[in-house]
């Protein structure tokens, strides 16, 4: 039977190119694939665009990528957390670009990227700074703004359990952005806390079917 399992974290992130757009799952620390991010740091890819809900916490995960100068741009909804001092300093120094996207639009744009949708009209953000310069349209009396899909070259996914076919389940609110991101990248890499035998995940409860996943690593 086919296997998408890779032996270690280095193999998991092998080949990520400079300049890549990297979708990274997680909301704060929940579901953030820290081991994969550390492996990406070791792998060396630079000039990255990072798509995540946040812009890194303290000195680990995405903040480490930032601190090591690997990130050109962050696309997120909420860069300003109590412990996002690494991003803050780089941003204020003009060393990293920022695109702020309302959280629900961010989730929907990533879903659209994975679902082959070319764009969608959303009511979120209408009349605000974040819709400036964007096309709007009144539909059945309500104003909507046109938003575009987001796709990544790579997605780093933090899952709970997975099998060698790439089927994944998540745990509680660590699901967050992971399922959409898994669908929206050319290369989807999942870290799981536990690798389970094929057939042991309930087919009714698989959240990310294996078709979306290219590599699975235990971490």
């Amino acid at each position, binding site marked *: 039977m086919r296997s998408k399992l890779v032996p270690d974290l280095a193999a998991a992130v092998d080949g990520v190119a400079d300049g890549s757009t990297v979708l990274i799952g997680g909301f704060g620390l929940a579901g953030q694939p820290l081991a994969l991010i550390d492996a990406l740091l070791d792998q060396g890819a630079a000039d990255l665009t990072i798509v995540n809900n946040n812009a890194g916490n303290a000195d680990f995960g995405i903040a480490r990528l930032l601190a090591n100068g690997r990130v050109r741009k962050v696309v997120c909804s909420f860069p300003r957390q109590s412990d996002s001092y690494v991003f803050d300093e780089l941003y204020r120094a003009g060393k990293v670009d920022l695109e702020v996207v309302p959280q629900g639009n961010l989730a*929907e744009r990533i879903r659209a990227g994975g679902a082959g949708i070319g764009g969608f009209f959303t009511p979120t953000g209408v009349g605000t700074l974040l819709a400036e310069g964007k096309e709007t349209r009144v539909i059945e009396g309500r104003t909507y703004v046109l938003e575009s899909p987001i796709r990544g070259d790579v997605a780093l996914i933090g899952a709970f359990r997975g099998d060698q076919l790439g089927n994944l389940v998540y745990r*509680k609110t660590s699901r*967050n952005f992971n399922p*959409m991101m898994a669908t929206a990248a050319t290369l989807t890499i999942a870290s799981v806390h536990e690798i389970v035998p094929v057939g042991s995940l309930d087919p009714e409860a698989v959240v990310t079917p294996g078709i979306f996943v290219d590599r699975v690593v235990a971490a």
Partner: protein
Amino acid sequence: MTLDRDALAARIARDIPYGAYVNLGIGAPTMIADHLPAELDVTLHTENGMLGMGPAAVGDAIDGDLINAGKQPVTELAGAAYFSQADSFAMMRGGHLDVCVLGAYQVSTGGDLANWHTGGADAIPAVGGAMDLAIGAKQVWVMMDLLTKDGASKLVEACSYPLTGVGCVSRVYTERAVFEVGAQGARVLDTFDVTLDELRSLTGLDLA
């Protein structure tokens, strides 16, 4: 006597209808949860992907995989459900939540909301789910102080801070009064030890 935060939270809780699906924004609005009696059968939504959220987790119940939108550890009630943030915001945007209570920098008499950005040149913009919450629920209520520390009214004719949503707020709860806002302008629904004239003076608004 004007209401303190806790009393205001209790006041808001009294207006939440039986069986409502409710999202309580980060900060003061989370205090409302403590005033929702079990028999009101309110279901709490947290936009990071859960319905049926329970109280804050303490001690051994703390689980890093189970957090609310403010990234605080919480608990799960019987009958809960987890879902992705795409599904969670589809739920919000699609108008399925009955009530959302948010904090604010300013609310206009027409119901415009400013609660995400001070507009300061030095401020790093960070919106999170604020704009989605502002336009998603069937009713969007604001819980805030009526005045800034400098004594300026936060209920205003037109917001000076950058907007979060246009015409989206229907009710404003403050320590001195409850207001209805919207296309018809602001109307005082309830007062706490303050006269209408005093409110007019505090806000500079032609309140009725």
